[in-house]
């Protein structure tokens, strides 16, 4: 099981979410865990209270999409960290360090390294040019109708793949951690998410993220400190004992087979780095802060929390090798009870008893809920702000109508998520997160970065680049081993690599370049001319939408 998990991951070269999704796909229902349920109910009560409070403050579209643009850099940094670190980070990466040692740490660096790049090249321009969705930036000087439709389609594609992976993972995890029925878990996540987003909009979603991030940081730190104290906080001592008992022995701290193939390694690195910079729910967070100054601070805080937490997880995984791996209580028939992803949970129980186990389980549930809410809001804004207000109504929709559409869209997305979650219960959906990152890196990122940096981008080029990236990323994954062989059941993959980014991203850039360069229409000329003003605004922030005036 553990081996299968790691091989699958290695082959797919996916994000850690894949670990959770894959491993929990074969879990069995556990006894009802009351500690966890009570602690989770406290979390729900607290966040419902915040949603009630937020509902009174959510009146305009700006409130709904971006919390009125009044979030501080520190709050937003926590919320970004909350958005970025899913339950899979906590459970999947701990499990990965536990089984593979150093490889888990390499993955974490790949997850982290995109953040400095986002700060240096994107954060302030995003804030200076965008209002509610990243399509505001790509469509800034291009054809509103066509470019927005494209950006909305690729956003929704990313959101749906990501939601599906989260929902199935959530159902399995909750079944495992709380002993609840799969369908009940799916409905609980879907319905709670609808309440947060429809009533509280971005204000409630942000606070759910912040609370969850604090819980995650606290819970993880507590487990790590308690576990590490058993080794007198000595890395030397911990590693001496760990390498002595681990099946990898001294090879524990060697890079293993996960990234041995250079093409996969580079493609994965590109996908994780630039996929992060193309995820609609992450990009949206940059519009919630007051100005470019706060946008930069958000990245500083977010990357600090992420880097800190990854190192905590690394130590947790190493401690678990001894504390969990050497304790027969946590094994059933020679295998880890509950599956590979339970390492972090068993560790919590071993060092802190049922209370800490319950707390960490509640953290995992809260985490899923928070990520799903952020995704749903990003999806709903693509439907209401981009498609309804700008494409269909061409900017004539009233704020009230636009908010109503986003709420309806949120509820629809909630039911879509519940439906997909139930439909895909038995499927291996591990490739979904990889697909989401791949599409984000190939369809969203190239057009977004070109629209900010390259004067010559025209509507025709943007459409070719965006749709080209979207279609090629989906096709590359479809014909790769993860779908063509593992899901459809064919013998050999038509496309040899499981990571699309290295191939689909350059293709998207190339298409955007060629079709812009050969575009000699009058409109193209005007679009290129309009870059000058956009450039000054991107640099200075003059004319950028400020914080809501109330």
């Amino acid at each position, binding site marked *: 099981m553990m081996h299968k998990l790691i091989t699958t991951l290695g082959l797919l070269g996916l994000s850690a979410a894949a670990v959770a999704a894959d491993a929990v796909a074969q879990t069995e229902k556990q006894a009802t865990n009351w500690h966890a349920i009570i602690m989770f109910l406290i979390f729900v009560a607290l966040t419902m209270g915040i949603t009630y409070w937020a509902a009174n403050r959510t009146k305009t579209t700006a409130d709904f999409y971006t919390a009125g643009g009044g979030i501080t850099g520190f709050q937003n940094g926590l919320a970004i960290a909350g958005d970025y670190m899913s339950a899979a980070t906590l459970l999947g990466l701990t499990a990965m360090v536990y089984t593979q040692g150093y490889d888990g740490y390499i993955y974490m660096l790949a997850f982290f390294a995109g953040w400095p790049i986002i700060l240096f090249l994107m954060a302030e321009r995003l804030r200076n040019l965008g209002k509610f969705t990243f399509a505001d930036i790509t469509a800034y000087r291009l054809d509103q109708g066509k470019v927005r439709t494209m950006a909305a389609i690729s956003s929704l594609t990313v959101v749906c793949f990501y939601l599906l992976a989260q929902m199935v993972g959530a159902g399995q995890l909750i079944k495992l951690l709380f002993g609840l029925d799969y369908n009940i878990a799916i409905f609980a996540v879907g319905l709670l998410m609808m309440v947060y987003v429809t009533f509280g909009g971005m204000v409630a979603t942000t606070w759910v993220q912040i609370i969850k991030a604090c819980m995650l940081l606290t819970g993880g730190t507590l487990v790590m400190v308690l576990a590490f104290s058993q080794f007198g906080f000595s890395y030397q001592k911990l590693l001496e004992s760990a390498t002595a008992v681990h099946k990898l022995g001294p090879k524990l701290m*060697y890079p293993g087979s996960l990234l041995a193939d250079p093409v996969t390694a580079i493609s994965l690195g590109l996908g994780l780095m630039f996929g992060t910079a193309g995820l609609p729910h992450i990009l949206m967070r940059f519009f919630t802060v007051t100005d470019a100054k706060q946008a930069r601070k958000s990245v500083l805080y977010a990357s600090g929390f992420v880097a800190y937490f990854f190192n905590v997880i690394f130590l947790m995984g190493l401690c678990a090798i001894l504390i969990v791996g050497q304790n027969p209580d946590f094994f059933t028939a020679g295998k880890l009870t509950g599956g590979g992803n339970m390492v972090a949970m068993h560790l919590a129980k071993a060092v802190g008893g049922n209370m800490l186990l319950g707390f960490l389980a509640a953290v995992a549930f809260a985490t899923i809920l928070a990520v799903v809410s952020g995704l749903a809001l990003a999806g709903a804004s693509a439907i209401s702000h981009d498609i309804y207000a700008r494409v269909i109504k061409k900017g004539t929709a009233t704020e009230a109508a636009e908010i109503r559409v986003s709420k309806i869209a949120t509820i629809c997305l909630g039911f879509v998520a519940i439906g997909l979650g139930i439909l895909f219960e038995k499927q291996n959906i591990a490739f979904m997160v990889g697909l989401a990152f791949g599409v984000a890196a190939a369809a969203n990122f190239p057009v977004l970065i070109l629209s900010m940096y390259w004067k010559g981008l025209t509507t025709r080029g943007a459409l070719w680049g965006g749709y080209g990236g979207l279609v090629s990323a989906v096709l590359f994954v479809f014909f790769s081993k993860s779908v063509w062989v593992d899901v459809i059941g064919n013998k050999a993959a038509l496309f040899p690599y499981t990571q699309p980014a290295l191939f689909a991203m350059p293709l998207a850039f190339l298409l955007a370049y060629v079709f812009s360069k050969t575009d000699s229409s009058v409109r193209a000329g005007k679009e290129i001319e309009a870059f000058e003003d956009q450039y000054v605004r991107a640099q200075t922030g003059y004319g950028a939408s400020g914080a809501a005036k109330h």
Partner: protein
Amino acid sequence: MSSVMYERMRTNPKFQELVRRRGRFAWTLAVVVLTMFYGFVMLVAFSPASLGQPVAEGSMLTVGVAFELFMFIFFWLLTALYVRRANSEFDGLTQEIVKEAWKEQK
């Protein structure tokens, strides 16, 4: 109206100065991060054994872990460095540019 403002800002030599200084700083930092990260990925792919060596005789700390921990801290310090300079020097310059464009208005 705002197009006139943008035109004034663009022709302000301070704007060129801002773009040049910030561009150079941001790209330098980005290149440092990208080089170190992809250099590390290459080491993982082509020379994994070198990362498994201990930093000193008898130490359990390996070169790979030490280098990665260094990158976690170093990359974060680079973000702090950028935020510090951007939030003081670059933002100050930006405010001057906007203010001067407004002055011409009158």
